[in-house]
């Protein structure tokens, strides 16, 4: 089956004036997102996440390259009716939350009675049922972001494109959104989630891509990215003669990592010392470590948007 979302060798140069020196925000960016997966689109600020999303939705044009969304080229208007989009900085409107959701649903061709029901349902799902008739101007940023999520789902989209959807949410709301997204995946939707909140991504995404200076520098499942096949973590207790070098002692357990080649020796040492072996597991970094290693300390790819 074809990809839900596919970026093919996209390059985007921004220039202030037609004659001024271009700034390259995307540089040969290629990525295929499978149908039915939750894809985590990671990258430091300014790496080009928002730019690629805007190109996919036809809000801006690529300088070079192309791509498809649900099998149709970027910018294909009827296809956009089957997409849900949440922009990075959700805009404030003058109208009430429910009117706003209905306006966006209507623009995507959701028929009247269904629109009414779904609006109510979705505003309830994002915990805004008490303020549906209040103007969104008076909302907090977190509330507006939740309205934005309701808008993104109003047309029951096959593909959800969410640009940092939880950046303004409190922890409780984040959990709620996570549930919402997992439910959407159960229904067979594809979710393309841009974020720099690593813990979020780690919890729900099937695959991750890391963007850096407009290029995809890493792609894989969470475990592919985090597990180091050539290192193991050893956990033991009751070691006579003290813990080995570099080990961390905690609650009576000692934990340390060894290269694969030294695994056997390490285990034998535990037994020799009269210790009890608790576990031997592939060593796992956290996403933050991987992210920082890959993108380096100097992680900004130019002036901030």
């Amino acid at each position, binding site marked *: 089956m074809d990809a839900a979302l596919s970026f093919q060798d996209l390059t985007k140069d921004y220039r202030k004036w037609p004659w001024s020196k271009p700034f390259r925000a995307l540089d040969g960016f290629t990525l295929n997102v499978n149908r039915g997966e939750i894809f985590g689109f990671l990258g430091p600020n300014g790496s080009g996440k928002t730019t690629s999303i805007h190109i996919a939705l036809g*809000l801006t044009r690529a300088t070079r390259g192309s791509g498809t969304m649900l099998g149709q080229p970027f910018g294909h208007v009827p296809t*956009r*009716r089957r997409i849900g989009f949440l*922009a990075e900085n959700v*805009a404030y409107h*003058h109208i009430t939350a429910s009117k706003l959701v209905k*306006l966006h649903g209507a*623009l995507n061709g959701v028929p009247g009675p269904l629109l009414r029901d779904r609006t109510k349902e979705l505003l309830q799902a994002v915990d805004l049922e008490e303020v549906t008739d209040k103007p969104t101007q008076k909302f907090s940023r977190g509330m507006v972001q939740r309205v934005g999520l309701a808008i993104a789902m109003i047309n029951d989209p096959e593909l959800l494109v969410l640009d940092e959807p939880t950046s303004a949410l409190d922890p409780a709301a984040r959990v709620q959104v996570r549930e919402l997204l997992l439910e959407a995946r159960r229904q067979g939707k594809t979710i393309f989630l841009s974020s720099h909140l690593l813990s979020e991504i780690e919890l729900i995404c099937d695959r991750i891509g890391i963007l850096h200076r407009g290029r995809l520098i890493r792609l894989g499942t969470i475990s592919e990215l985090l597990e180091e096949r050539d290192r193991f973590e050893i956990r033991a207790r009751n070691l006579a003669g003290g813990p080995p070098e570099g080990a961390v002692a905690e609650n009576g357990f000692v934990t340390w990592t060894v290269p694969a080649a030294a695994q056997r020796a390490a285990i034998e040492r535990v037994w020799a010392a009269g210790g009890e072996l608790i576990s031997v597991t592939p060593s796992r970094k956290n996403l933050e470590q991987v992210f920082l290693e890959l993108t380096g300390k100097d992680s900004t790819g130019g002036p901030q948007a």
Partner: protein
Amino acid sequence: MRAILYIAFSFFRQQKLVVLVLLAFTLVLLGVFLSESANNPAKTELAIPYLQLIGYGIFMPFLLCTQMMYLERKTRRILGILSKGIYRWQYITGLWLAGMFVSATQLTGLGLAMQLAAVWRGWEFHIWPALGAAFVAAALAGAVAVTFGCFLHPMVATFLAGGLLAVPYWLSSRSVGGFDMLLPVVPIFRTIMRSALLHPWGGDPWLLVVALAQAALLLYLASLLFARIDVTSAVE
């Protein structure tokens, strides 16, 4: 067609205040004239401020059409709207139509107020054909405004669009031939001024047809232009 109406109403709703202020102004004027029975104002005295209000009915949509897009981009509301299954030309048309709603509301309110004054005083005014002509002028002025407003800062857009409307009029007033049918917003407004609502509107009906055709052409042009524009950053 529906998408255009949704967009138009959404823009129109944002201009509630403008519309209300214009209507209130019309009503206040009407009140003044109806209540001043003692010193019995002349018919011409009533016509002059109303002629001015007709001018607003053309100028307001012109101003709005140069500005609305800029505000949408600045607030990033445009990203949410244009990411839906709608075409750029529908957005442009909806925006222009919102300007026409403002004009139509203003001109209709004005017409009703004058009609009322006319009946009250037993005067004869020639209101509706003149207001119809004013609406056509507004449609053309709005189309010019949208064309510039979709890619320029409103200040620049207002200046250029205003200039574009003034140049053909200026040329034909210097008896340079062939310009009197080009973007005839000013000529139409002048025919209304000349009749002053006291005489039948005396303009050439062809002028209106030509104006509408030019408005449609400009909207088409604006759509072509706007379809190529990045809407992700505000115009500086």
